[in-house]
């Protein structure tokens, strides 16, 4: 007996020593990780200090980012991967890495650019301003006023905050929204897998793959959070996880299962300072974990916690309220949610079978009663797109591959990033072992049904990509984690290559249009000057609509665009074609019954025209130059980035 137990004791001692060594190693890694997340944000700010966004080329932000910024992202990623590979998983420090990644990836433009980016941001500020001024919405102005939920909320927040404009919120909204998305994603992913590494890697992949840029100050940015929140609550409390398994069977199995099976290393019974810090930032209550445990027990699944009728009714009421708030806020997101809810219910994966019915009533009710103005004017166009899947795909894909060589490279980068993510996701769904493949596959596939409804102005594939991203990120992470487990040089290389590709692809894909998307103070001043001079009957012409426009007096002015004129498309570089365009602009600005006219040019318009190639490169810059040299126009505002011209009186011109 003694001779048999001695080696066992020896083996146990050796295992204990290995465990101690591993715990010490993990503690050291946690300390290094903490130091990295503390050090990176100030270093990142320093690295961006000398960036001049005006030097950007057609490939966008990556053309001006210094090497130091890339190096910081690489260091953060390496630290994240090291923490993922360590046992036990240090979730608090990993969470801090995710937060810093979100700030780095989504906040860079907020640091280097002078004012909020995107023309749409400024339009949204104008709608909010309209509501703040008038206290009402006018559905006859445009589609935004038929789904004004987001703008009403923004006006409400801005007024109560004592601010005169919502512009202060605009610059950092992408960082705010991307961080907001993390909580529901944790809920969804944690429900789908017991492996904490997959959860955090999926969030990392999500942040690196969310290149579609809908997280600016926009209805879709906020509605996407509500969409994720509804899915999180649904998946957490009302979705059967095992495909084909009923909730009752699942609950019975879980009740009979041994608690905390598959638990990894035995946790340290005396938590140190780092452990206590982890407990503070941990996203589960300490009481839910085994005593002394720092990492969450990778138990089969969280127990069903809706024990009382009050809880069931309360959570369902919250889901209905949040869904109801989404309906007046955005046209498309409620349809995406309806598609997912209906698919889950039809496939028997969700116990909330009446929920899609409620949404199916709310959506048309809003359209018929509150958005009737829009529907009356656009019904024919909307109806003609229903079922035209080929047209929707064509307008989303084919129409976008064009423009300058740099822009074509960016578009190819976007397609490559999307394809790689979907390939990884497919591999993860097929080869990975997430326990709720069916439910998450529904989350990833149901939004494709939106292709049947409409092209959404050629953006439907982008939006579908966004709605499917949580599931795609999860499955991709499930596949990538297998590479960590393999622990071979080849798998390590494959894993690193995938992360590097996602990060590089993100920077190219998301900020590829940045030369056109960014605005400067002087461009804003040019538009502001026009607003201060113009009368309600003034004619306002601009190179294109790509400028900070409509942020005030939203309803007062219509904009004529040079790039929409018939002579613009025939601009071939010859003097004749330029003269014809100049004559058309001149006629437009001397419209009878108008008290004044203004012509606005700015660098962002030139960049947009060059990037998307609506005419030979440099055409809009040549038109701007021709106007500046023409005796028919006089500059009333001029800076290095923008200019405003007015027509010279005919007698004066002579």
């Amino acid at each position, binding site marked *: 007996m003694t001779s048999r137990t001695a080696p066992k004791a020896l083996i146990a001692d050796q295992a204990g020593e290995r465990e101690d060594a591993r715990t010490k190693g993990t503690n050291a890694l946690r300390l290094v990780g903490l130091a990295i997340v503390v050090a990176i944000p100030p270093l990142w700010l320093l690295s961006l200090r000398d960036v001049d966004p005006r030097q950007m080329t057609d490939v966008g932000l990556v053309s001006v980012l210094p090497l130091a910024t890339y190096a910081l992202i690489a260091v953060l990623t390496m630290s994240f991967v090291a923490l993922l590979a360590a046992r036990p998983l240090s979730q608090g420090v990993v969470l801090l890495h995710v937060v810093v990644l979100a700030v780095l990836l989504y906040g860079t433009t907020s640091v280097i650019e002078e004012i909020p980016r995107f023309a749409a941001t400024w339009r949204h500020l104008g709608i909010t301003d309209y509501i703040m001024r008038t206290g*009402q919405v006018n559905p006859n102005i445009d589609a935004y006023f038929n789904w004004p939920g987001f703008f009403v909320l923004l006006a409400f927040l801005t007024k109560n905050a*004592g*601010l005169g404009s919502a512009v202060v919120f605009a610059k950092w909204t992408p960082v705010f929204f991307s961080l907001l998305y993390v909580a*529901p994603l*944790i809920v969804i992913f944690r429900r789908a897998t017991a492996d904490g590494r997959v959860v955090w890697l999926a969030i990392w992949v999500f942040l690196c793959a969310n290149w579609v840029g809908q997280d600016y100050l926009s209805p879709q940015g906020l509605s996407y959070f509500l969409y994720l929140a509804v899915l999180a609550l649904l998946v957490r409390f009302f979705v059967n996880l095992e495909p084909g398994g009923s909730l009752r069977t699942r609950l019975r199995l879980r009740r009979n299962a041994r608690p905390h099976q598959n638990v990894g290393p035995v946790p340290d019974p005396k938590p140190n300072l780092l452990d206590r810090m982890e407990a503070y930032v941990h996203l*589960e209550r300490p009481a839910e974990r085994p005593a002394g445990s720092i990492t969450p027990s990778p138990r089969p699944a969280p127990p069903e916690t809706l024990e009382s009728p009050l809880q069931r009714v309360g*959570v369902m009421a919250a889901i209905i309220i949040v869904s109801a708030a989404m309906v007046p806020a955005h046209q498309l997101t409620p349809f995406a949610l309806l598609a997912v809810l209906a698919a889950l219910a039809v496939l028997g994966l969700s116990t909330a079978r009446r929920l899609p019915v409620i949404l199916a009533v709310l959506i048309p009710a809003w359209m018929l009663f509150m958005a009737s103005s829009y529907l009356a004017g656009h019904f024919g166009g909307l109806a003609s797109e229903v079922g035209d899947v080929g047209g929707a795909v064509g307008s989303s894909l084919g129409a976008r591959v064009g423009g300058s060589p740099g822009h074509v490279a960016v578009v190819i980068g976007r397609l490559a990033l999307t394809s790689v993510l979907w390939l990884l996701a497919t591999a993860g769904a097929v080869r990975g072992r997430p326990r709720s493949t069916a439910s998450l596959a529904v989350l990833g596939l149901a939004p494709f049904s939106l292709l049947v409804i409409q092209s959404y102005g050629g953006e439907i594939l982008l939006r579908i990509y966004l709605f499917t991203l949580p599931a795609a990120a999860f499955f991709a992470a499930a596949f990538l984690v297998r590479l960590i487990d393999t622990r071979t040089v080849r798998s390590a290389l494959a894993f690193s290559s995938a992360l590097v590709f996602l990060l590089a692809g993100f920077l190219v894909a998301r900020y590829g249009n940045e030369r056109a998307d960014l605005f400067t103070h002087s461009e804003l001043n040019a538009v502001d000057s026009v607003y201060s001079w113009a009368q309600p009957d003034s004619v306002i012409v601009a190179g294109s609509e790509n400028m900070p426009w409509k942020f005030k007096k939203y309803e007062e002015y219509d904009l004529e665009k040079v790039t929409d004129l018939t002579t613009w498309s025939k601009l071939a570089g010859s003097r004749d074609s330029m003269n014809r365009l100049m004559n058309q602009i001149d006629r437009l600005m001397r419209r009878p019954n108008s008290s004044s006219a203004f012509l606005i040019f700015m660098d962002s318009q030139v960049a947009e025209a060059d990037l998307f190639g609506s005419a030979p490169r440099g055409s809009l810059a040549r038109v701007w130059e021709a106007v500046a040299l023409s005796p028919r126009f006089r500059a009333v505002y001029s800076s290095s980035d923008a200019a405003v011209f007015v027509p010279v009186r005919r007698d004066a011109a002579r």
Partner: protein
Amino acid sequence: MRYLPIVWPASAVVWSATAALVVFTGATPSVRAPIIVAFLLVCPGLALTRLLRLGDLAVELTMAIALSIALDGLVAGSLLYAGEWSPRIGFTVLLAVAVVAAAIDAARTRRVWVIDR
């Protein structure tokens, strides 16, 4: 002993009181904006979510923020479509929701605490 901390409802009440103070005294926007935005994005939903005792911080955080945003939007939208646009009335309604829910939470917390002791 089951111990349900009173810190949440107490925090909700304190935050609500601070928000009411800065709104009704007309504090400068630089002080008022962060307090009000944080209140409107978290407090009403958090106070209601806490009543459900869901026991998972990520779930509670998700539900609290989503519910707050939804309630803000629904209250503001209802006032606007009723022709009674008044951000201050809307704020008062949400303040009442947060305070009443926090008071119920506090009462339940105290009851459980007393019983367990």
